[in-house]
């Protein structure tokens, strides 16, 4: 099993006809994901060919609601430019999709505040991201921009705020022959739809996930909250790393959310909270795979 996405996921791509949308929709489709529809306002009724792929063109709709009605889509992935991305999220929520994955980077925070409130009011939709690589259940379904080939089907759940650092961790696992149930990049923004805690709760309930890798970074308190949950509820081994141990305070380290502000959100604090919760914390990012292997052998 896996969480959130699998072979039954039917994906609508918001922003399909753009360069990014086209490129990544194709890689997802080649991975085996059912890309059933695209949404580009004004291009409804047309169909869009994903260059270089042998698959039939994807039907395009003006609204997400139209796409859902016509194709039975249940997952959306968003590639629209940041000024319009919060609106795209709300449109997908309004169409009551079960899962919305927002890849777009650079959404204004106050736009996300509104989108977040809208999500909570509707209660129908889980959001992953924004500013994230997406989600993949190896061997089944890829909804995102991660390189599919480094993954392997298996039993380790991976949740991370980062993109390429997640690939690094996954690569370490796959090279050791350790597969993944689902890998979720939750995104590097201050306000995100799915937190470490949410992902860990789902992995904990997934019978096929045997161990969980949690990769955090400086800023905020999401890692501490997840650690508190792990301490209370999680019996599966959790392996953790926090990026930014050498980051200076007050500087935004690339991700909008990766900033040590007012003395809070340091890597040291997070690692301590995780360690105290019984999480196997590694200091070096090169040790993630080895630590997972060790805990699984026990």
């Amino acid at each position: 099993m896996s969480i959130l996405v699998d072979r039954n996921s039917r994906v609508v791509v918001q922003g399909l006809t753009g360069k990014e949308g086209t490129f990544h929709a194709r890689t997802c489709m080649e991975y085996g994901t059912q890309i059933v529809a695209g949404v580009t306002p004004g291009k409804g009724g047309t169909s869009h060919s994903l260059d270089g792929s042998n698959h039939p063109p994807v039907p395009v709709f003006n609204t997400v609601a139209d796409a859902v009605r016509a194709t039975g889509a249940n997952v959306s992935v968003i590639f629209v430019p940041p000024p319009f991305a919060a609106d795209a999220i709300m449109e997908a929520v309004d169409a009551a999709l079960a899962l919305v994955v927002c890849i777009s980077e650079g959404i204004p925070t106050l736009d996300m505040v509104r989108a977040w409130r809208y999500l909570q009011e509707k209660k129908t939709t889980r959001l992953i991201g924004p500013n994230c690589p997406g989600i993949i259940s190896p061997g089944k379904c890829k909804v995102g921009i991660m390189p599919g080939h480094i993954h392997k089907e298996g039993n380790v759940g991976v949740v991370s705020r980062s993109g390429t650092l997640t690939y690094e961790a996954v690569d370490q696992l796959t090279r050791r022959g350790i597969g993944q149930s689902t890998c979720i990049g939750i995104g590097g923004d201050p306000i995100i739809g799915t937190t470490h805690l949410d992902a860990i709760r789902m992995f904990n309930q997934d019978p096929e996930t045997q161990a969980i890798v949690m990769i955090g970074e400086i800023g905020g308190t999401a890692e501490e909250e997840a650690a508190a949950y792990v301490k209370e509820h999680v019996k599966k081994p959790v392996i953790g790393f926090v990026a930014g141990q050498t980051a200076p305070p007050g500087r935004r380290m690339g991700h909008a959310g990766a900033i040590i502000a007012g003395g809070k959100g340091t890597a040291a604090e997070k690692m301590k909270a995780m360690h105290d919760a019984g999480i196997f914390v590694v200091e070096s990012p090169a040790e993630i795979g080895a630590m997972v292997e060790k805990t699984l052998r026990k």
Partner: protein
Amino acid sequence: MKIHEYQAKEILAKYQVKIPRGRPAMTSEEARKIAVELGGPVVVKAQIHAGGRGKGGGVKLARTPEEAGRLAGQMLGMKLVTHQTGPEGRIVQRLLVEEALHIKKEYYLGIVIDRAAGKPVFMASAAGGMEIEEVAAKSPELILKEWIDPGTGFQAYQARKLAFGLELAPELVNKAVQFMTALYQAFQSSDGSLAEINPFLLTEEGDFYALDAKINFDDNALFRHKEFAALRDLNEEDPLEVDASKYNLNYIKLDGNVGCMVNGAGLAMATMDIIKYAGGMPANFLDVGGGASAEQVKNAFRILMSDKNVKAVLINIFGGILRCDTLATGVVEAAKELALSIPIVVRMEGTNVDRGRQILKESGLNFTVGLNMKDAAEKVVALASHAVPEAKVQ
């Protein structure tokens, strides 16, 4: 994005937040003239993008215009060191000269985004004028909080709760409510990531003022506030960081001697961490982003190398969208153009990695290959520490 106090106050004034009368000055003569205009005692305040200016000697009272001119002369060009500037300090190039007020009591007001709650939070405290981080750490109960629902905005009752919570006299509450409401308007309309009034001043005459003001803008929202571009003060930024921002590169200068170039913010931080773990110190944070071109990679390299402390470089790329061959092409071009003499360790993985390795090999340049992150970090740290004595000989 950060701006100066006087710029923040100009924005606040547009939203009817009450600020002391005053103007910015670039010369001592200007400062003197402003003091003449204002009449009476004035305060001369150094304008740098860092707090703690008072303690560092960057805020002074002048009783006469002549004194204002003299103090301004001393302050302009001086190196101001505060707990927020680091030991290198900042050179003072702009001043704010404003009327001195009769202080009765100092409070604190601030608005930030509460990440866990997913909405802005309005904070108020009677412990104003101090480091609010210190108050928050030692006595968090002294900070009152009202969370703002984005659907309805900041309501008058919330401002009243804060005002009564500050134990203001009943006749002052409405004035404080007006002030807070105006502050929220300014924060919301300018896409702030932080707005802080510390101190939020009550005068002997019973009026409230923003005696100091800080506004940070959300970088992601700058596209809809084109007018803010003019507020950027490049003197307050590291020249290398300014250069990097022109090419959409995320570069932050640090103190070590191992330069690093990475794709992705998380992996870039993790690379810095593993350099330290291997016994070295990173010279920078540099994220070339997900879809960097060979041109961007070249510029990234140039910027990285213009930091003279750099003794060796680690390139750590996990190719996803950024393909390893693109990266390798950029690196080779840059290395040739810049006639690089320092050791470079390259660790590549992911999309088109074989092609990338081939390009590096065929370049005829001397790259050290890192087999994985650990191996790469150990190699680059060893190379950087060996490079130090050589540099001294030269």
